């Protein structure tokens, strides 16, 4: 499922439409520690986090992560927004908390997941 579709399904607001919106996401990883996010960051993952800072965009940039989802309606500050635009990271914010956001994302992705064989 593409990032744009996922955002629409879970009712997240997209701040930086464009480039990465069409990227197909295979998995979701949520966490609030940079080291954890770094380890799980790959080119088809959506990172979900409470951390609304430019460092998250930096991680995305270094690890080729296409999308980042903030939670609990958190809004990115101007720096974060500028960094996401500059790098072409799709930045969205979900109105739900971390747990519920992940639950919704899981439902979206598991509905379409191919049976592993």
């Amino acid at each position: 499922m593409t990032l744009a579709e996922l955002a629409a399904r879970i009712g997240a607001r997209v701040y930086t439409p464009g480039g990465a919106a069409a990227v197909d996401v295979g998995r979701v990883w949520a966490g609030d520690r940079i080291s954890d996010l770094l380890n799980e960051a790959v080119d088809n993952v959506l990172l979900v986090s409470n951390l609304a800072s430019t460092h998250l965009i930096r991680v995305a940039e270094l690890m080729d992560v296409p999308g980042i989802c903030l939670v609990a309606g958190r809004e990115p500050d101007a720096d974060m927004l500028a960094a996401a635009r500059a790098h072409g990271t799709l930045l969205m914010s979900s109105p739900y908390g971390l747990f519920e956001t992940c639950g919704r994302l899981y439902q979206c992705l598991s509905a379409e997941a191919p049976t592993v064989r």
Partner: protein
Amino acid sequence: MTTVVYQIEGGDFEHGGEASRRLKEQLKRLGADPAVVRRAMIAAYEAEMNVVIHAVRGELRASLQNGQLDIEVSDTGPGIPDIAAALREGFSTASARARELGFGAGMGLPNIRRNSDEFAIESTAGQGTRVRFSIRLRPQTLYGTGRHGLTIEADRCRRSLRCVHACPTHAVRVLGRRPEILDYLCIDCTACVAVCPTGTLTTRGTRAGLPAGEDAVVVVPAALLVQFGSGIAPAQVRAALAALLGGEAAAPSARVWVLEAWEAALRAGVRHYAETAAALPVISPACPAAVNLIETRYPALIPHVAPLAPAVEAVRAALAGQRAVFVVTCPSQRTALLGDAAGGPPLVDVLLPAAVQAALAPHLPAAAARPAVGGTVPPPPDADLLRVTGLPHLLHLFDEIEGRRVRDVRVVEPWACAEGCFGSPLLREEPCLARHRWETAPLPADGAARAVPRVRPLAPRPGLRLDADMGKAIQKLARIDTLRRELPGADCGECGAPTCAALAEDIVLGRAAAGACVRQRPQEKAP
């Protein structure tokens, strides 16, 4: 890129990660493997942020040479008072501000170590810290050490397939016309060399003949001195070898060093270590192949291995700065001597026993009619030391130690070859006989011999990574499992893989063709 240097400002969270970003651009421009870039970025970013979080200022210096990426991040700052604690996962001294930003999870240094092939840290409290790490660029080194001392003479192979079955770690395949060694599993022992009927699998010296007339020390295993039949004592062989080398009229013991003396020193060192060691039995690192086996198949036993270097490495250290030629009896000794972590030019030469034997034979005195028993009294058997030789026995014993069923032994000395190096397939004499001849007429101990600490710490080998991407790796694992169930399960080895499970893995990884199984009927074969 030869070397690039980027400055890092301590406390500047806004620009933290900038050095790593610029390094990434460089690596991409060079076309580095994405898996390498990924590992480099995790490690570099963690190291850079450590400077931002803890230090005053620092720099990231990266260079690409000898097929590896070396990164050094140094800073002036408070330093790390307790490095061991800092390396523990979850240990952090980061400020509240850093933690709010998601740093300070205590995973920085462990993450760097995990994502690099070599890692070193030094720090002086009150001055600063220097972290150095290297990532090898060849993709196969993701899977293991990436080096072994075996040579494959492919045109000799007649597909006897004995090697496939003999390998204790299932590292050999003969899927095509020639054998292949899977680096990440090979422990550099002699199992395949010993069974190969055609000499396809062997090892090579870095030179062909003795350094006659050169100013070089020759290091020989005791086993080499007892290869010349009955009635010729080791001392006579050593004297003949020294004479053959010529040059200055130095004593034979100065021109020809015998490895056995250094093995005895190592044994004493291991015993001493065992007096206070926490994990018993202590395992001696005498045989490099046995140590490789532990890293590959018995990682739980790593804490049992005494932190000392094999005898060949101790001798090499003692001969630093001199020309030295080592006569090696197995590929693992060759690798220990030549496979320098720094990747520089080899410091020493290695020579195979056959070359020495051929050169020596005409120069030996006639054999005495009576057994040549030397003047030295053989040492009494070691009561507190269990010597175990030969791979099948090693595997059983390691299983036992792992199962905590060996409580009555203080020190174990494992050797991969039967009777230790006396049983090397590169030697001709019957191992028990050779060993007996040595033990009844050993050379006097060498006063200079000593044990030295191990330089590279032991670490579990990562084993096979099916894919750098975890998602794809899981899919591959599922396919391997399905395929394994479809194969007959006879483990006949006729396809050139040791087991059906190994073949399933080979097929999914593209090493073997889908229809490689010779037993499956065509209609059963997967499309």
